[in-house]
């Protein structure tokens, strides 16, 4: 049971228009059977201040991450969480969030690790919904729990680990952090807490494309031509490339993973969620300082 796609002409330019919906489409479909709207924000309280009618909240810190091991939740926990939120395996999920859908894209990526088939982003996220004057409510939705099946998480197609990155040299890497993090001037985002990396810099050969360049001022995704100019023009990606994206903990690079995979149509793009908080602390991995991508090391297999 899949809900009709948003026929907006802007989306038709993208490789996978079925992965985006507009605010107007969502408004018109809020009561459509089989649709579940999920809000996922950086700020854990934002949903409580007001959310799209009927939407449920997923928090990246407390619900998507395993509380002990540095990893995502396991299949049993994922099934329990989705059941509690009234999501079925065949639900159409639309995710939206603050900061140009940064955390919404992360939630979408984690849902994709568990093979949830129909999960889409609200173009422009929370900010654009509000900017268009659409309503938010503080009323908690009436959720009927479901029985979401326990499905194995399949990491390999879209998730890279450190050894995968070491074996990947010679193929393109995209570093989506700020220029200051890329050059090694700092190990965390400007104005964000220090999360502890012993070394600054970037993975050798990685091209620098800060994630937010994919978003327009109104938080919606830029059009196809602009995105092609950034990723294929400036960053030098070519059709058929096997790409790994990374940032600091894998959240900003989920946004870029979405852009490369669904908007530009690259196949096999992986998100290295260990990212700089692993690489910048790992013993014996190569690092480059400064604005230059640096020489490509020998792939280690």
């Amino acid at each position, binding site marked *: 049971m899949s809900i009709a796609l948003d026929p907006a002409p802007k989306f038709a330019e993208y490789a996978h228009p079925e992965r985006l919906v507009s605010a107007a489409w969502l408004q018109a479909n809020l009561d459509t059977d089989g649709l579940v709207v999920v809000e996922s924000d*950086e*700020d854990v309280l*934002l949903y*409580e201040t007001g959310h799209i009618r009927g939407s449920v909240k997923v928090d990246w810190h407390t619900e998507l991450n395993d509380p002990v091991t540095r990893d995502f939740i396991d299949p049993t926990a994922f099934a329990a969480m989705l059941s509690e939120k009234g999501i079925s395996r065949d639900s159409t999920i639309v995710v939206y969030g*603050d900061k140009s859908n940064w955390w919404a894209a992360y939630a979408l990526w984690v849902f994709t690790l568990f093979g949830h088939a129909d999960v889409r982003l609200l173009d422009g996220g929370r900010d654009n919904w509000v900017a268009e004057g659409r309503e938010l409510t503080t009323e908690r939705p009436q959720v009927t729990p479901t029985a979401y099946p326990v499905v194995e998480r399949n990491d390999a197609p879209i998730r890279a680990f450190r050894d995968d990155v070491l074996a990947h040299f010679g193929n393109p890497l995209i570093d989506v952090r700020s220029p200051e993090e890329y050059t090694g001037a700092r190990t965390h985002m400007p104005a964000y807490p220090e999360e502890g990396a012993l070394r600054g810099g970037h993975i050798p050969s990685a091209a620098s494309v800060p994630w937010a360049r994919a978003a327009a001022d109104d938080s919606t995704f830029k059009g196809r031509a602009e995105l092609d100019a950034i990723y294929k023009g400036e960053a030098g990606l070519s059709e058929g490339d096997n790409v790994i994206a990374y940032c600091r903990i894998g959240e900003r690079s989920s946004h870029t993973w979405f852009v490369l995979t669904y908007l530009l149509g690259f196949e096999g793009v992986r998100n290295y969620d260990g990212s700089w908080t692993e690489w910048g602390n790992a013993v014996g991995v190569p690092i480059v300082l400064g604005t230059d991508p640096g020489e490509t090391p020998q792939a280690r297999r």
Partner: protein
Amino acid sequence: MTEEALPAQLSDIREDFLALEQRDRLQLLLEFSNELPELPERYRDHPDLFERVVECQSPVFIFVEVDAENTFHLYATAPRESPTTRGFASILVQGLDGLTPEQVLAVPDDFPQSIGLTQAVSPLRIRGMSALLARSKRQVRERTGL
């Protein structure tokens, strides 16, 4: 620093949080967020006085005042779109206002970890409140020479 020495207004806040289920603790934090006082008129046009708390994930600015009666006051601004940070600031404003500088300096640095929010909000986010407390204490030292 013994438990008993925690000023009553701070221990009341802690007890209020700890008495609630996890989900309701977020609601209480939201109430604090909504209660963050506006800046008094005399400080409204003085961004120069305020210090940015860079450890927080959203723009929050604080300014400590120790008045002629040797009483501590904390003023903070944070955007409505950042309710968690506003809530943290509001807890400290309500919990510390009216204390003496000595009492503020005696508040345990791990007070933010002790009010039952680490699970509901996550330990990483709680660090923002720790930074607010640490910077408030530093400003108290600067104002008083303690």
